[in-house]
């Protein structure tokens, strides 16, 4: 697919909205959590800060048990990933394995901090004159403040920004399209702090070297549009526009949003920066604004606590490490028929085994579902090949074929049919009359493909090492055999033997030792 020249694209982004394939219209269920203004909950007794809150490797702890930490002090280091900071001032009680709100449900290393209630900040280093700061300077500040994508993928923002800048990005898209039902944290953020978002957009644009910014919101977010366009920062800035897009799930997916705003598709296996675009969540932009203008590292985020299983759903500005049970208590607790606790939305969220798990950078929503919400009207049946899944797939895949291939272990065919392009949105799952857990199958399939690739690499290495070793041993054997035959040849040659004996006698005499002719080697004149 040939791409249009970048100049045209920069002018056309957001001019009119296009469509993406498939998708579903879902009920929002967001109003109930948007009634109250966002507040900070009271400090919990302990904060459990995981050292893995981003896409990448586990961070190394920079503190030890018993250390006193200040609010905003860096406690985890990982190059090239996002840094981890202490959300409160207090003392480090433990550094141990605890549940860390990871999709796997596995525990990981966490820094457990007991707050002292004084909320004493570490020394902050804002970039006052960011308007004249270089891109590298801005990117470094973003990295030091631990900013990662707050839309859910938690990709380190500095890496994304650097990659976008190096590939000549012309437009920054701010993703305010919160397409999953129940989640309203981004909406509240846009209503309450539009100025920060705009400031963050300008900073990111400068760091990227881009021309314009497009803020995308859903077409039912009327109040949000007013808040954004009515803010003073908006009035003061150039080349920033707010565009409404149709409310179809999963509009908020990066690839789908780009398709709707530009009509173009991100090349398969590629990134948005391939076509000169970078997409960031609005909360990430707000965090960037705080990091650059105030020097504040990323230690808290807006979290929606909602669902039919919560007494009084609302949004919080929660510190990382806050146990989810604490947030739920601040909402009036659970209802009597609560059955499942999910981090994220009802379509893509992952379940938690216990609510002692902490709020992390990726926790945009805590959803408590009742038995009625999750009760399935039918047991799983075989696939009847109705094709509804393909009709709603935003990535234009054939979920029924992928499912059969994964079930039967046809990994190569599954890759050819685009398994890695699946965004795990759950649309196919939702329309399946046979109630097949398609997303679970695809996640398993992707994991297996990755595992098999790693295994086959290891197998190849093992085979090569084995063959090298066999070759080496064979070579040693051959050399030894050759040496033997040469030795035997020498022994047979009588003349050579005489010379050699004479030479060794000479050597011995030179060393001052005498030997007789009756040497153990035998007389060469005897046959």
């Amino acid at each position: 697919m040939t791409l249009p020249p970048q100049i045209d694209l920069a002018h056309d982004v957001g001019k009119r909205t296009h469509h993406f394939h498939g998708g579903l219209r879902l009920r929002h269920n967001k109003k109930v959590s948007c009634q109250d203004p966002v507040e900070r909950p009271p400090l919990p007794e302990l904060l459990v800060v995981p050292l893995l809150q981003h896409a990448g490797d586990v961070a190394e702890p920079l503190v030890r048990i018993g250390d006193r930490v200040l609010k905003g002090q860096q406690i985890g280091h990982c190059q090239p990933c996002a840094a981890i900071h202490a959300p409160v001032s207090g003392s480090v009680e433990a550094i141990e394995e605890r549940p860390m709100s990871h999709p796997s449900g596995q525990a990981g290393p966490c820094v457990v901090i007991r707050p002292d209630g004084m909320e004493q900040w570490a020394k902050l280093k804002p970039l006052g004159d960011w308007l004249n700061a270089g891109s590298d300077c801005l990117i470094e500040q973003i990295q030091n403040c631990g900013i990662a994508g707050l839309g859910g993928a938690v990709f380190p923002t500095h890496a994304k920004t650097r990659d976008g800048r190096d590939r000549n990005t012309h437009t920054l898209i701010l993703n305010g399209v919160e397409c999953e039902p129940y989640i309203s944290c981004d909406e509240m953020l846009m209503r309450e702090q539009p100025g920060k978002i705009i400031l963050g957009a300008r900073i990111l644009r400068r760091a990227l070297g881009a021309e314009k910014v497009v803020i995308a919101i859903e077409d039912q977010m009327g109040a949000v549009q007013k808040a954004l366009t009515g803010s003073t920062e908006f009035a003061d800035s150039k080349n920033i526009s707010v565009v409404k897009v149709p409310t179809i799930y999963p509009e908020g997916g990066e690839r789908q949003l780009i398709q709707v705003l530009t009509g173009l598709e991100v090349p398969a296996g590629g990134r948005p920066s391939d076509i000169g675009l970078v997409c960031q969540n609005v909360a990430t932009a707000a965090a960037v604004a705080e990091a650059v203008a105030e020097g504040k590292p990323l230690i808290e985020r807006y979290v929606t606590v909602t669902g039919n299983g919560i007494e009084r759903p609302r949004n919080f500005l929660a510190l990382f490490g806050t146990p989810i049970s604490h947030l739920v208590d601040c909402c009036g607790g659970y209802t009597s028929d609560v059955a499942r606790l999910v981090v994220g939305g009802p379509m893509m969220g992952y379940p938690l085994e216990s609510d002692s798990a902490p709020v992390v950078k990726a926790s945009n929503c805590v959803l408590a579902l009742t038995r009625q919400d999750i009760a399935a009207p039918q047991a799983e049946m075989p696939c009847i090949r109705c094709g509804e899944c393909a009709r709603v797939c935003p990535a234009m895949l054939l979920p029924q074929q992928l499912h059969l291939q994964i079930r039967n272990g046809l990994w190569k065919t599954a890759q050819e049919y685009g398994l890695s392009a699946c965004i795990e949105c759950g649309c196919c799952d939702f329309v399946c009359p046979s109630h097949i857990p398609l997303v679970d199958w695809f996640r398993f399939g992707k994991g297996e493909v990755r595992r098999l690739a790693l295994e086959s690499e290891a197998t190849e290495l093992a085979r090569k090492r084995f063959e090298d070793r066999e070759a080496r041993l064979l070579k040693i054997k051959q050399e030894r055999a050759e040496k033997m035959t040469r030795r035997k040849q020498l022994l047979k040659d009588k003349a050579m033997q005489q010379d050699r004996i004479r030479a060794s006698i000479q050597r011995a005499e030179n060393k001052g030792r005498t030997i007789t002719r009756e040497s153990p080697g035998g007389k060469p004149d005897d046959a």
Partner: protein
Amino acid sequence: MTRSFQVGGAPHMPPQTTVAKVMLQVLLALAPGVLAYTWFFGPGILVQIILSTGFAVLFEFLMLRSRGRPLKPFINDYSAVVTAVLFALCIPPLAPWWISCTGMLFAIVFAKHLYGGLGQNVFNPAMVAYVVVLISFPQAMTNWLPPLALAEHGLGMSDSLITILTGQVPVEGGWDAVTQATPLDTLKTGVDTGRMVPEIRNSPIFGDYGGKGWEWIANWFALGGFFLLYRRVISWQVPLAVIGSVLLLSLPFWLADPDSNPFPLQHVFSGAIVLAAFFIATDPVSGCVSDRGRLVFGAGVGIITLVIRRWGGYPDGVAFAVLLMNMAAPLIDRYTRPRMYGE
């Protein structure tokens, strides 16, 4: 105070549609056509439907038991009922009971369960049943009825029951007195003996487009088909391709020689084209997966049906066409894989 929870996979909002709901909608869509059938040809069809359904469910029960499968979701999914009703609509309304028994045996046991059960059959079970019965019992399968309006001896419910259950017609003159060739049959024998199509069509068993009565039944099936399209149970590609290919292929023949070829719309409203277009060729399990594939599949059904009608040995070739295209469906799927995002 912390609390623990049971985990489960995403999405956490289970789908509201079920296989049973899909099948019930298909049955609902067939209802207008069945009513029209009863109106034009008498209550025999209702007896056939009840018999076929009974045999189908019985064989399904026996097969599930012998395969060690649980009864609960499978018996209730109505897929066997849909197969039974479609089969009953294809056989003569007075066919003896052992026709539907044999048919359902082959449909449920051979064409469905021996291939793996729900969702695994390669061939359309109703069509397999019909073809088996057609080839094995050709005599019993030619005893079609004329419309009630034209019949000398219209058979009521009790007479139909007796005929179906005993195989003997309780009317003076036996089978010959009550049966008549179908419109398509008449057309075929007429053309083979050299008569002109317009002349053949003057016979009272022909209506404006297809056979008298048959064309109205086709209309009502089409109505049901549009209901299914609206409810997104089927997609538009197959019906469009079947009917479109029939029209497009028969048009040049009719233009070239209107005396030996029927008008295109007459093809559409005769025989089982409309039923096939909306209900038989749209069977998702034995059809194609992608949109383009479905167009090819439907076109194939239409073309092969016309070929059999014109040059083949049978008056209507829909069942054979569907089975042949079922065979080709995996190959069509391989070559019509749709483009993915970003490709």
